[in-house]
């Protein structure tokens, strides 16, 4: 598998993970990265370097929007919430990944590995 394809898969999975989390509630960057790590048992990990370029790109495409707000500790953080455009993206993106994993499962039996 080429680096380009790996990179696209990583990017696509990142988009889905972020959209899914933000569909539940607005979160700021550190929380997004922490929740993704915790909920996937560390299988998916976002560092600062991988998270923010993706978040800013999703913001540019109108999928998420950021706004500054104080967190529970009273410190200003930039919270991201899903836009209607982002919500529209979520279902087809889930479907794409479902198809992708089904195809891999058919070929390699990955779901039973």
């Amino acid at each position: 598998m080429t680096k380009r394809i790996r990179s696209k898969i990583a990017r696509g999975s990142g988009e889905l993970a972020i959209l899914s989390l933000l569909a539940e509630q607005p979160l700021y960057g550190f929380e997004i990265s922490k929740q993704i790590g915790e909920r996937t048992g560390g299988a998916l990990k976002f560092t600062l370097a991988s998270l923010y370029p993706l978040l800013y790109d999703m913001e540019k495409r109108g999928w998420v929007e950021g706004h500054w707000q104080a967190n529970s500790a009273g410190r200003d953080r930039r919270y991201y919430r899903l836009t209607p455009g982002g919500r529209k993206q979520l279902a087809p993106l889930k479907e794409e990944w479902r198809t992708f994993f089904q195809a891999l499962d058919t070929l390699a039996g990955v779901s039973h590995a």
Partner: protein
Amino acid sequence: MPDWNRPDWKKIVRERMASPNSPLILKEEVIAELAAHLEETCEEAQSCGLDASAALERTLQEVNDWHVLAAKIRRAKSKEDPMNARTKTLWLPALASLLGASLAMTLLQRVGVRPRLVWTGQVEMAFYVPWLALLPLFGASGAYLSRRAGGTVRTRVTASLAPVLWLLLLCILTEPLELASRGFSSLLYFGYGLAQYVAIPGIALLLGALPFLRESRAPERQPRTT
């Protein structure tokens, strides 16, 4: 050096992301957001039992290459895709310079302008003097368009030199054939060819580009550390 007990995260982010080659500085809002992320990462590392310096070290491992991160963020924040930026700063200005120089040569030949022949003692060189006189205009147009689109000095030079870079490529590509047919004596013609088609027109193009190279697009002043 940051204070190990309470690092100034904004200062760390600014310093590590600053690049002398980059014409743009990230917005303060982005720096504040990244600094906040690092701050919480460091606090979490300390809450897991790491001492301050170890926590700082682990936190900074969040980013392997700050300049790469800065470039990615700029691309993500930019309103246009990177291909457009390169097209605007390099390819279009280079094309303008190349087309201008080519059209001028074609027109001059159509109206019957003859080259001035100069005998060097070994080889006769042909110079289209009116064309050479026009070249600074095309060098200037390439550099100007590139600068207007935010091109770096190197990009402006490349764009302005496009006509001779094309000729240089042709010379290099045809030289093996010349070598095969004429032997090593072709190297002499190659040298004169480079002077005639690349070096002298290149100087003319650069003369035109010069005014647009001097005025560098200076980076915005970096905000003071808070």
